[in-house]
């Protein structure tokens, strides 16, 4: 039932992209997002497309998986396209009633749509090829310098990874309690809004209780193992750059240079 929702949605596969250091992937994703807002011409668009699809191919994640993420932004996409299409001033191409579509509008709408779609596709490569744990590790290490200005980087990263870890557990728990109440004849679907809200009580009460119990257990377990925050804490698998990370940085640099050059000269 509920388990079918994929959150964090890591897709296990054996690819070069999966093997990259999370910091490399974070940096590459930032550069990529930046590049999305830099290109203005078809040539720039071609370069970005080439880069994106090359990485998708390398990642060995089925394309259908990535497209799933697009469903979430369909509405935003439509609104953006419609606004850009009708509200951009310029040379009218078609006009009917009070609406007119201009050449600039068409171009803007097209580019905006492409940018949004590419944004989701690109960032989903990051989450699909990196486990939540690696991701928070990567963030923690990349943001380490902020420690100097007293940002509790380690604590934030720890909270993030615990939260991420708890999402599937809570979903599983919800699923279990829901089934147990269904077995007692509960009905979560029919009736009006008030009735539906009331029907949630047998689900929410046990869920909250179990969430608090788990949080409490976890806190105890961490303390029992002498957890005391980030100072002097070492990692079992410290992040280390490897050869492919160097290559990846070079390629990403090359890609960014190409996008900038294309913006200037084409």
């Amino acid at each position, binding site marked *: 039932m509920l388990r079918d929702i994929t959150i964090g949605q890591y897709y296990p596969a054996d690819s070069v992209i999966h093997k990259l250091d999370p910091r490399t992937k974070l940096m590459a994703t930032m550069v990529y997002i930046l590049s999305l807002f830099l290109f203005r011409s078809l040539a720039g668009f071609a370069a970005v497309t080439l880069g994106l699809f090359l990485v998708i191919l390398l990642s060995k994640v089925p394309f259908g998986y990535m497209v799933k993420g697009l469903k979430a932004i369909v509405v935003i996409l439509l609104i953006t396209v419609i606004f850009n299409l009708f509200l951009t001033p310029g040379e009218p191409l078609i006009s009917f009633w009070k609406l007119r579509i201009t050449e600039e509008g068409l171009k803007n709408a097209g580019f905006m749509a492409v940018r949004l779609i590419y944004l989701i596709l690109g960032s989903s490569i990051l989450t699909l090829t990196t486990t939540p744990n690696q991701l928070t590790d990567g963030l923690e290490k990349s943001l380490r310098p902020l420690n100097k200005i007293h940002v509790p980087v380690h604590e934030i990263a720890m909270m993030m990874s615990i939260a991420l870890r708890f999402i599937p557990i809570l979903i599983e728990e919800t699923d279990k309690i829901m*089934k*147990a109440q*269904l077995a*007692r004849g509960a009905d979560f679907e029919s009736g009006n809004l008030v009735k539906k809200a009331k029907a949630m009580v047998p689900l929410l*009460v*046990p869920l909250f*209780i179990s969430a608090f119990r788990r949080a409490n257990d976890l806190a105890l377990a961490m303390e029992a193992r002498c957890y005391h925050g980030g100072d002097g804490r070492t990692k079992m698998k410290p992040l280390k750059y490897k050869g492919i990370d160097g290559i990846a940085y070079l390629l990403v640099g090359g890609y960014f240079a190409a996008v900038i050059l294309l913006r200037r000269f084409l």
Partner: protein
Amino acid sequence: MSIILDKVNYVYSEKTAYEIQALKNINLKIDDGEFIGVIGHTGSGKSTLIQHLNGLIKASSGGIYYNGQDIYDSDYKLKELRGKVGLVFQYPEHQLFEATVFADVCFGPRNRGFSRKDSELKAFAALRSVGLSEDFWYRSPFELSGGQKRRAAIAGVLAMEPEALVLDEPTAGLDPKGRDEILDLVAKLHRERQMTVILVSHSMEDVAKYVQRLIVMNRGSILYDGTPGEVFAHYRELEEVGLAAPQVTYLMHELRKRGIPAAGTATTLDEAKQSILQAFSAKHGSVQR
């Protein structure tokens, strides 16, 4: 009452990277008044199987028939089925939510559409039959001990007056006394009300002592289906799939190896005692006890 499973398959997270086939081609016929035990190593599909019996999970393929009616028919009332096949989950105490134990037990019958008064009568009867002392009935369920909560939760299912009772490891996490009490309660329900009972368990001793028919699950398929005596005769094969026979079965085999012709199918202490006494009296004439 009868439940028939016809070539049931079930796949979790179908069409994703995490696909798991939890049930493979299950054929099963459960008759009225049977007391069935289901055993199998962890992850063998026991919980998945029993959730099919009241339609909580829909089989990926295959059919399930309750009293001859296809429960996957679009106009079949699954909610009614859930009242008839009472399912007690593992750790059922986690589903308690009302302010008092009594109100919680009323939840099931109320959902089945009984009036307030009828529901309360059924709740009374159910709480009494699980042997929960009246002192606890109007307390918050969260003030009860583990074993008491377990009883309250079982009462919550019994109050729906199901025709069949399915229990998923009802004794997990209880002490020996609590375990025996719960199992004796289940056995009593079967004996006195001729209720069909399906008991999932990890304890070979428990199932050998109580059930009439034993189903062994292995990796999503049914490995054996027969009386405990028949099934435990395969104790070597059971060990290969990570299970074991009750201790007495091993004892009987040892005895036979030493030339004492005790019956090999004894699975409980009582049966073993009987057959050993018989073997001795055959050898030495009558034996005083």
